[in-house]
């Protein structure tokens, strides 16, 4: 057994987290920043943060993930990181020539109280920010929230530091993307284009962290939301923020700052969350829903009706982030599966409430917890007490899956041991088909493997 010290016996823990179902803010801020064209993320802290976050994102995407660091030493930690950051800004613009530097703080710089606004102002005053170039920033103390919070903070930072209202409204809407894969962002664009919507998507990591192999390295690949589009977001007629944990704050800030009205919806995962997304998009962008979208929906529903006997009543354990978990739970319920255990390290009472709303009517036995105490060790203990037919989560789930012989669907962040997530979406109806295909493959593979010889089936 890989996790051989995990037992059924659940003891209350107040202070010790074991096998967390979250990580810290800056990695989210770094990922969000990659969704701006020509952006170099910058980690204001010690080197290790930047190195760890780059490594995590690199392993997840198997793509270059570039970011700079303020390389704090003990001295900077005592005297403050201002000179490190100003020096860094100067060096970055000189050597790496980005359009924009996106600075996020760390627990180190937060604890010593570095004031990013003031430091960046000082850099600007000191001529370290070339004409036409930008430095945006956000506070991402690692001891608050989770990686999702960091993503949200960087997206809000884009709005706070770039969006402007000229007073003239565009016939365009903002699509603010939650933390999803580049494939998902590409898929959202495909759907929105199919509907004829006029939009700016931000952040947009497609064509950034899924760049083609061309034989030459581009430090700033062609993807990412452009600075002019980000600035103009303040003039757009409405905002649709999808993935509330990661985007609602930015949408609110944009409304406050530039009077752009918004709707915040859940990530379009599965049938009904995608329905809501499509309908909001249709309303806000004032476009119709074409037959092609309806047909994709119909194909997803079709596969569910065709394969329901393999899905019905299957017990599922999930861990990950609220924005993914909530619509995924709804999707599983719609397929008559039973999401019985759900944990997320990301705090927030709203998640508990929403899950309650979804689960109580049909799966009242479900256990779910987020924030404090909600870690993968607890999830594993629940599973030890009563097993499940499927586990869904990031690559760390593979230890539980192997120990307990549970089919394991990799979804979430990070996925360190498989590829495909960056190329094939799980959002939208087509994404739902992919999720469903994967679930069915797992369930059917297990049946094929474990059925007795008389029960082995050619046709399924």
């Amino acid at each position: 057994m890989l996790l051989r010290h995990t037992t059924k016996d659940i003891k209350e823990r107040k202070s010790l987290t074991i096998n967390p179902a979250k990580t810290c803010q800056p990695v989210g801020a770094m990922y969000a920043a990659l969704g701006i064209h020509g952006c170099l993320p910058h980690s204001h802290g010690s080197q290790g943060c930047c190195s760890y976050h780059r490594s995590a994102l690199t392993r997840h995407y198997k793509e270059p993930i570039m970011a700079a660091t303020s390389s704090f030493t003990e001295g900077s930690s005592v005297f403050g990181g201002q000179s490190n950051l100003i020096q860094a800004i100067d060096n970055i613009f000189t050597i790496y020539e980005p359009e924009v530097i996106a600075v996020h703080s760390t627990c180190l710089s937060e604890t010593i109280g570095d004031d990013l606004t003031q430091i960046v102002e000082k850099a600007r005053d000191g001529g370290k920010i070339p004409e036409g170039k930008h430095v945006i920033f956000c506070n991402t103390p690692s001891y608050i929230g989770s990686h999702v919070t960091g993503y949200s903070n960087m997206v809000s930072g884009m709005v706070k530091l770039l969006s402007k209202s000229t007073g003239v409204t565009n016939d365009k809407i903002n699509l603010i993307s939650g933390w999803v894969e580049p494939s998902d962002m590409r898929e959202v664009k495909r759907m929105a284009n199919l509907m004829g919507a006029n939009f700016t998507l931000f952040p947009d990591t497609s064509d950034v962290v899924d760049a083609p192999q061309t034989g030459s390295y581009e430090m700033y690949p062609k993807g990412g939301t452009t600075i002019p589009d980000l600035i103009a977001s303040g003039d757009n007629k409405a905002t649709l923020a999808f993935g509330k944990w990661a985007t609602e704050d930015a949408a609110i800030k944009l409304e406050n700052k530039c009077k752009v009205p918004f709707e915040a919806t859940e990530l379009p995962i599965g049938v009904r969350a995608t329905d809501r997304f499509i309908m909001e998009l249709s309303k806000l962008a004032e476009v119709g829903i074409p037959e092609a979208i309806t047909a994709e929906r119909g194909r997803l529903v079709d596969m569910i009706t065709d394969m329901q006997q393999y899905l019905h009543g299957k017990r599922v354990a999930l861990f990950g982030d609220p924005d993914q978990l909530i619509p995924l739970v709804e999707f599983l319920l719609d397929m008559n599966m039973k999401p019985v255990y759900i944990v997320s390290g990301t705090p927030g009472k709203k998640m508990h409430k929403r899950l309650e709303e979804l689960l109580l009517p049909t799966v009242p036995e479900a256990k779910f917890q987020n924030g404090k105490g909600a870690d993968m060790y607890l999830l594993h203990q629940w599973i030890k007490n009563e097993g499940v037919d499927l586990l869904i989560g990031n690559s760390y789930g593979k230890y539980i899956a192997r120990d307990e012989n549970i089919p394991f669907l990799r979804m979430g962040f990070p996925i360190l041991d498989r590829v495909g997530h960056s190329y094939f979406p799980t959002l939208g109806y087509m994404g739902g088909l992919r999720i469903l295909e994967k679930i069915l493959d797992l369930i059917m593979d297990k049946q094929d493997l474990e059925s007795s010889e008389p029960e082995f089936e050619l046709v399924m």
Partner: protein
Amino acid sequence: MSTDNKTNMFPDSSDLIEEILNKYPSKVAKKRAKSLVTNDPEIDQEIQSNIRTIPGIITQRGCCYAGCKGVILGPTRDIINIVHGPIGCSFYAWLTRRNQTDAGPDGENYMNYCFSTDMQDTNIVFGGEKKLEEAIREAYEIFKPHSIGVFSTCPIGLIGDDVHAVSRKMKEELDINIFGFSCEGYKGVSQSAGHHIANNGIFKHVVGLNNTDPGGKFKLNLLGEYNIGGDSFVLEKYFEEMGITLVSTFSGNSTMSQFENAHMADLNAVMCHRSINYIAEMLEKKHGIPWIKINFIGADATAKSLRKIAKYFEDEELMAKTEEIIAREMLEVQATIEDVKSRTEGKLCMMYVGGSRAHHYQELFGEIGMRTISAGYEFGHRDDYEGRKVLDSIKIDADSRNIEELDIVKDEANWRDDLVAKKTSLEDKGYGFSEYEGMMPDMEKNSLVIDDISHWETEKLIEYYKPDIIGAGIKEKYVIQKYGVPLKQLHSYDYGGPYAGFKGAVNFYNDIDKMVNTKIWGLIPPPWKNEPELVAKMADTAY
């Protein structure tokens, strides 16, 4: 790159260095200039290393915590390592190094777990010592481990939580070994600081706790071998066959009880000089155990290292057995070289990694005829480049001064006069102890040595040298491969390996052959690349 056709000599790289430095702001250029050296193995050359990375420069380096928790303590399976801090530090060090361990079917093994105090803002404001105490207590109650390590992260250092005091208190309360490390990320200039702090901690709190004779005629500690991809497993088999008792490995496939017993060995064999020479030095100073530098990366190096160890024990049977193993293993090695070399000979490699690997792997590449055009360490010191002879001339700067240097006193009760005598006698016969010549003397003339290479420098080097393969880490891998140049991860081995010993060398030859000769690199340019009439630029938002 154009080598001189007649001499096959590497080109002088001054134009490249100039081009690199030209891009930098002048202060940066001045500083970086001292870390780029065109090698001449015939003369002594100083290279600037183990100094701060310049803010804003994209570096390979990580932090002190990474070196302490990740590298040194990572591979030990029977200790619960609680990271005191916000969740990230513990999360990122969770199973991301490929230290394999074999706990058997029932042994204690916490390496697949991640423990953290997950500090929250209120804890940062009001202090986290209570939380740490409670976390240790909870860990004990759930797992009943024999040892708990506590790691302090950046904000912990700043708010002043005393992990050592808490550890002492809880050690008292729970009656198991509990100890802390002040390995905050901002300490030192790289992971290297963390190695030092980890070594100090283990030496202070663990080594020497158990005086039981581990038994056997020849007792060895293997230092600086971390069992990446099963390297240690390969070596353990050789030692077993030779009849050598491996008292402890620092720290591949290790347990705390090995460390407790480490002072009972007869010899310390040091693999990664950078990360672990501290322990070797302290064991000699405190217990009189001599150390030698060995290297198991490369078949010849392995043979040489095994012979050196055998020779130390001055036992005919052992030496005969050693030769038998070498002869047997070299058959496969030579057969593989013969096959692979025709496809790899003359190809160029570069390596920027670690504190030893950039050196060790040059031999391995060399065995299949590949030449190292440029290399450097991520967190090496001058002695790793220039040899231990420069140790005394290294200036201690502010960043190094912050790392505690233990005051080691001779342990009279456990002092090995026999070994001291043996050392003297062997030295008289020309056997070298405590020696490490560094990487630069082993590199070719005009090869380019670079410390703490930056992304910008990497780009320029690729353009200039057009290497056939580069050895570095995960952060570099896909950047370099986008140029169509394969990158071999020398931290994780691209999830291949083992690469140590004879078996490992064979694996490596084959893996490198595959990487540099795979067809896929030839498929990168689309066939219409050179048919401009076929290429359209279109708005393609709709796909």
